[in-house]
């Protein structure tokens, strides 16, 4: 299947592109898409446990199955984040 992949902020800089297109196997999940990226851009690998992901403009789990034509986005940590590390500005 064909999916559109969107990258933001530091991930976008590492990959050198805000939008990529990939052909993935029919049983692909968001995680499959991520690993297709890290194979090509090893600089993304350190973000493996830090990313959030969204499918079709909704937050999603990495285990979410993808469908033909889906847009999957990978998001680096945000400045506030999940209550563990917390900026105050």
């Amino acid at each position, binding site marked *: 299947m064909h999916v559109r992949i*969107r990258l*933001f*902020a*530091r991930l976008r*800089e590492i990959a050198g592109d805000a939008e990529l297109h990939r052909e993935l196997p029919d049983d692909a999940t968001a995680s499959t898409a991520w690993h297709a990226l890290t194979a090509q851009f090893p600089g993304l690998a350190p973000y493996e446990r*830090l*990313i*959030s992901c*969204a499918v079709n*403009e*909704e*937050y999603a789990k990495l285990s979410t199955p993808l469908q033909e034509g889906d847009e999957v*986005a990978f*998001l*680096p*940590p*945000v*400045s*506030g*984040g*999940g*209550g*563990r*590390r*917390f*900026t105050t*500005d």
Partner: protein
Amino acid sequence: MSSAREAAQEHHRVTTAALDPGALVNSVAGPACGAVATFVGVVRDRNAGRRVLWIDYEAYAPLAHKAFDQIAREALERWPAVRLAIHHRIGRVAIGEASVAIAAASPHRAEGFAACRYAIERVKQMAPIWKHEHFEGGEVWIEGAPADPWDEDARRHALERACT
């Protein structure tokens, strides 16, 4: 919930234009609301010992709108009479300019303050918006923790900060 959700969505904005706190107050105020609490986040000239020059904000805009919408729904569940508006600026923001502005109108002031504080904590936690800080001698992406809309610890943390 659906009509409340639609009303809340109209109040949210991700924009390259300068934010206007006065207009934000007017957008939520109404004859039944005796209190409007607002928060404006401003780009500071220093951060972590660095002299900041400006900040570029980047957003995944459609998801940011939905995150603001979720935050407003959460606030409505906790404080049913509160009307919330969340505006976030993207692009280059100069020192002293507002990057985020939130207004919470309510019949009484206690819930307005609480909802406003809750909203900014949640925005920082889960809005897909990134800060690219440009300082004297370099630049850095400010990365805290992953945005996770299902993180109940984070939500509890925001409620604690809201002093409820």
